[in-house]
């Protein structure tokens, strides 16, 4: 292990503090794994339900380390010309026709497969940047299995091989963060190369602080009631447990409606903000005696 650059964070406490400065309140688990990913130079795979702040984490890391965020959004059918690089065919053709007859074949061939005709896509961009970079590979589980193979070289050696040109190695390792909603099992090869963080719902105290920082106008007592209620809802067997984003939305809704206590009527009127499935609402109402 020979880090190419000095680590960005000094200690776990330093991570917590600087992420907080970027507006992200990190739990011990998050701070520790971010610290380790940075220190050991390994990619970080973040898994967890929707709405717990996986993508936010990448943005906060970028902001706190003053790096640029390079984002690769995965979707079904993404391929290497979208993720890695592509040759600029039109420009290549132009170059060939421009020098027709005046140049030998060998020179032309060497010339059209050079840097100038390469269109970098997010992965190559992140590898080639000399400034601090955070590479976010978002929703990797949406991409096809073949794309994972493509990532392996980038993730383990921080390099990209272009057959016509040779291997491009990172001059400065980017901080790589992959997110997954675990709609499918990722391959062992990919997981092996990463540190793993399961990002779950935060504990009560942290969630209170998150809500307070996002909806500062909300009264403390109401925030407290809100967080406690959401935690109880998560304890029920629901189809979709409410996430942090929903807690914040709920807080904003109550604020907009000018409600200052979370009594039966308020909950009944606004339950749809936190529970998005009809069957979940019915169940919660029945179990929590909301009628």
């Amino acid at each position, binding site marked *: 292990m020979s880090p190419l650059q000095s680590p960005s964070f000094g200690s*776990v406490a330093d991570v917590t503090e600087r992420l907080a400065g970027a507006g992200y309140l990190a739990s011990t688990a998050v701070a*520790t794994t971010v610290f380790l990913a940075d220190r*050991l130079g390994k990619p970080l795979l973040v898994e967890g339900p929707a709405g717990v702040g996986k993508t936010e984490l990448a943005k906060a890391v970028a902001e706190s380390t003053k790096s640029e965020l390079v984002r690769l959004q995965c979707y079904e059918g993404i391929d290497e010309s979208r993720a890695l690089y592509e040759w600029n065919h039109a420009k290549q053709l132009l170059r060939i026709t421009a020098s027709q007859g005046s140049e030998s074949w060998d020179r032309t061939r060497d010339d059209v497969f050079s840097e100038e005709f390469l269109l970098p896509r997010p992965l190559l961009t992140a590898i080639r940047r000399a400034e601090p970079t955070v590479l976010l590979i978002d929703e990797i589980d949406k991409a096809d299995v073949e794309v994972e193979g493509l990532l392996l070289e980038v993730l383990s050696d921080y390099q990209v091989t272009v057959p016509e040109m040779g291997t491009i190695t990172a001059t400065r390792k980017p901080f790589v963060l992959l997110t997954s909603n675990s709609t*499918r099992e990722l391959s062992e090869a990919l997981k092996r190369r990463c540190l793993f963080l*399961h990002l779950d719902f935060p504990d009560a105290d942290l969630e209170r602080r998150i809500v307070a920082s996002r909806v500062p106008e909300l009264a403390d007592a109401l925030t407290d009631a809100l967080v406690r209620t959401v935690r109880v809802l998560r304890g029920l067997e629901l189809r979709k447990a409410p996430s942090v984003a929903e807690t914040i939305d709920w807080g904003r809704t109550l604020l907009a409606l000018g409600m200052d206590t979370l009594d039966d009527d308020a909950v009944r009127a606004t339950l749809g903000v936190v529970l998005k499935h009809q069957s979940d609402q019915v169940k919660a109402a029945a179990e929590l005696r909301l009628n």
Partner: protein
Amino acid sequence: MALLAPHGLPGHLVDFVAALRTHGVAVGPGETIDAAKVLTALDLLHRDHLREGLAAAVLRRSGQRKVFDTLFDLYFPAALGAGSGEVEVPRVGDDEDGAVDVDALRDVLADLLRDGDDSALAELARAVVDALARTGSGGQGDRPGAQPSWSAYQALRMLSPETLLARIVDALRDADVEPGSFADEVLRREIRDRIARFRDMITDEVRRRTAETRGREQVARTSVPKQAEQVEFLSAYAGQLAELRRTVHPLARRLAARLAVRRKHAKRGELDMRRTLRRSMSTGGVPMNPAFRARRPGRPDLVVLCDVSGSVAGFSHFTLLLVQALREQFSKVRVFAFVERADEVTHLFEPGAELSGVMNRVLREASLVAFDGHSDYGGSFGSFAEYWSDALTPRSSLLILGDARTNYRDPNLTVLRRLAGQARHTHWLNPEPRRQWGTGDSAALRYADVVPMHECRTAAQLATVVESLLPI
């Protein structure tokens, strides 16, 4: 002291990793090296950081966390022996070594639960376990020389924290909140949650102390919880089953994704010889342009026939939930439940239906019992064939769930053979271990002669079987 590892910290780490492996967490040498790097990068005085750091290095799936936490507490305990806590356990007569004063102790516990102070609760758990083991509560006094015995059962029975619920709720309730309202219910559940956490603390503490006296390998072998997918259906208790139900949707999603990949790869059918030869006429008999058979997307009807008698209820319930979650993979699903006779319960599994209480509704609303409520496979197959045999068509797959324990009644192989002949495929999923098939009143081996029978003891096994059975 036997707790010191002979090879220092690296040796200790390897032991820890080995324990994880025996509990089904696949940790490779690469991960172990990562874990060792984590040890060098972190300040080892922060136990929480160490825990999260090691988890990041060795875990690869979220379901493994519970096993990891328990083993971490065993291998990297927070304290040795009784530790040095602030919390004092009240004694009878204020004597340092006297018996534990149960009533006073319950008062202390109620106060701590009311405040929800987790660290103080953990210290109380430690002190209680220690005090109970050394002096007992009934006043049998000091037992010099005796091996201390740690017992979660004894501690929890003495404290019985559940009975404190009403008292704490009363103390916390605001004056204007009426009992039975929403706010009251939320509070009640919150306190119940705290009490459950305290029970876990006691259990963890007992596990730690036992590991000190009896060796952690032995404790790790016997009292570490299994991953939800590895729990056997037939021996699972309510809590494990609830956790299992929570894994249904991720499991179904994973299965569906794998099936989608398989479908994609099998999109092009096999070579169509007749059309290829016919096409080759125009190129002088040279098959330039081969023709392939188009594959019809195979979405079969599924007919599930499942035993819902008490002995296999956990298994049937889980499998039905899985089928329900996978319903996009089938054009039509019909579900029949049976105990002594069969009845259709498809309407209870409609999309969007509330599924966690569905088993109760099945038992309450369907007419399944004729005589004594013990499962009767022969009779059930008979009644199914009599009333619903039109559910089975050459396009449908029949899935039978049950342990094939007939209570020594007629297994009715003829009817099963006829049903199997009517359906395109028939498979039997049996939650019993294979070695118990055919023992006692089990007719499993006789049924297995008629239809293919698969052993499905755990959710992981079930997933494998379902994946291999589902048509492309």
